[in-house]
């Protein structure tokens, strides 16, 4: 189910999963994504809320603890595999680009 639904990840999905390599809560992710992408990628609070719910439903992340209104999550094995697959896809794309334009340099 997770594999079909998230067969390709958008940038926002990709960075959200990347942030969850380490346990963190939703608000940390809202800060971390612009930080790690030099403000190139921003994620909306509503979008992140929906994404976290869907990632949990698809067992790509799991809830670790709740402190007041803050729930923390971490990446699961399934999530890691999907992230890995996306990384490979991006690498393959980059490789195709390099090969295609190598003669121009």
């Amino acid at each position, binding site marked *: 189910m997770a594999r079909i639904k998230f067969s390709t990840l958008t940038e926002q999905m990709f960075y959200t999963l990347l942030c969850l390599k380490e346990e963190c809560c939703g608000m940390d992710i809202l800060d971390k994504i612009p930080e790690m992408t030099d403000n190139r990628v*921003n*994620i909306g*609070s*509503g979008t992140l*809320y*929906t994404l976290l*719910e869907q990632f949990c439903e698809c067992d790509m992340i799991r809830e670790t603890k709740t402190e007041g*209104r803050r729930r923390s999550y971490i990446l699961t094995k399934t999530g890691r595999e999907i992230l890995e697959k996306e990384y490979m896809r991006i690498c393959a794309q980059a490789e195709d680009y390099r090969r295609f334009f190598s003669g121009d340099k």
Partner: protein
Amino acid sequence: MKDTKRRIELYSFFDHSGIEKHLEKMAKKGWILQKITNLFWVYRRANPQNLKFSVSYCPSASEFDPSDSETKNEYNEFCRHTGWNYAASGAQMFIFYTELENPTPIQTEPSLEVEAIHRSVKKTIIPIYFILMLLAVLQGAMFVTNLISDPIDILSNSTSLFTGFGWTMLFILFAAELSGYYLWRHKAKKAAQQGEFQESHGHKTLYCVTLLAVFIGFIYWIISLIINSSYFELTIAVIMLFAVAALIFLVNGVKQFLKNKNTPAKVNMTLTVVSSFVLSFLLIGVVTFGIITAAKNGIFDRESQFYQSLYLDSPPLTVEDLLGNEELSDRYITQISGGKAVLLGKYEIRQYARSGDSDAKLPGLEYTVTVVKARFMYNFCKNHLIKNKDKTEGGKVIFADHYEKTDAAEWGANEAYRRYRSANYVNQYILCYYNYIVEINFDWEPTASQKSIVGDIFS
């Protein structure tokens, strides 16, 4: 100067773009949304300012969530973190505003927004709209069937007309809302594939026109009830209106009380549904008991022996008139029923001897007066009344039942028809006057002078 303002806002459930624009205009005028109740949106006064509003949908939220719900608080906290202040929420819809010039939008992924909206509205709004549309179709089908089988009855009854009209209007509204939503969803999914958001366009004008039409229909119905109905009918209608209002108020009160007590959403929903059933039965029971008790105590006996229309407080034609004996009036029971609406009126008058009257030979009289208020309906009504009811088999009449033209002059009418049933003429006539069509049934063969009495009264 008032610091709060209540407005009825007629926005389609999916029209987030329309709501955002409207709230931004209101903020410019110095009114900021504070609360959404079942009927009104409540605004608080503030300095006129340029604010950005964002309407978003949280599928895991519920109309029955406690006031201090975890989902609501967490969602608000997320949005506050990116500079959005909570304004109000209703079920799965959350409304935020910000003073920031370039805030990170609450929704940054179009496909997720489309999905969040769909998951939210299919939880409550879509099933409710489908159920209401189905009810409207059933009511509409019943109305049309009755209209075909007995148009005069339906068109002369303001309650039937109002309910038929009301359900038709609501069907148009629900159908427009649902098709509008699915059209927007189709476009939004396409746009999302290109990474773009799709603006929504609701049916605000249609909403206003439909509800205004239903409201005018309602006022017409109430006025016609006051003018045309019997004391009994009017009392029942008023009691039922108050009962429905009380039911809505009480069920809503139960839901709100449980929300304030921080009852879990599922428990609240179950208790609210159960209470709505219990209260409905209780109210119907109390109303029925009240009416029966009142009827037993003679409260509805104001006008006559049975019940009577206020419009026709005495029958235009009586057996006493026809027999020329006024003293007979005490020996008869007279029933008048019926009413009138925009196009037509219909009154049924029955006179029969009181039970236990020593003279068993006292004849009865029954007649129906159709009052044609709109001239273009005249031929339609006449043709409906004189419609051939012959039973045929293989093109042959096996049981005759129809009206045949007879001498109209002796009835002082423009046209007159006599019923021919089986193999005989019966004493049943249809008499056409200028704006009345009288269907009259005698227990005896009327004499020429009796026919002229009828003519004098109706012509």
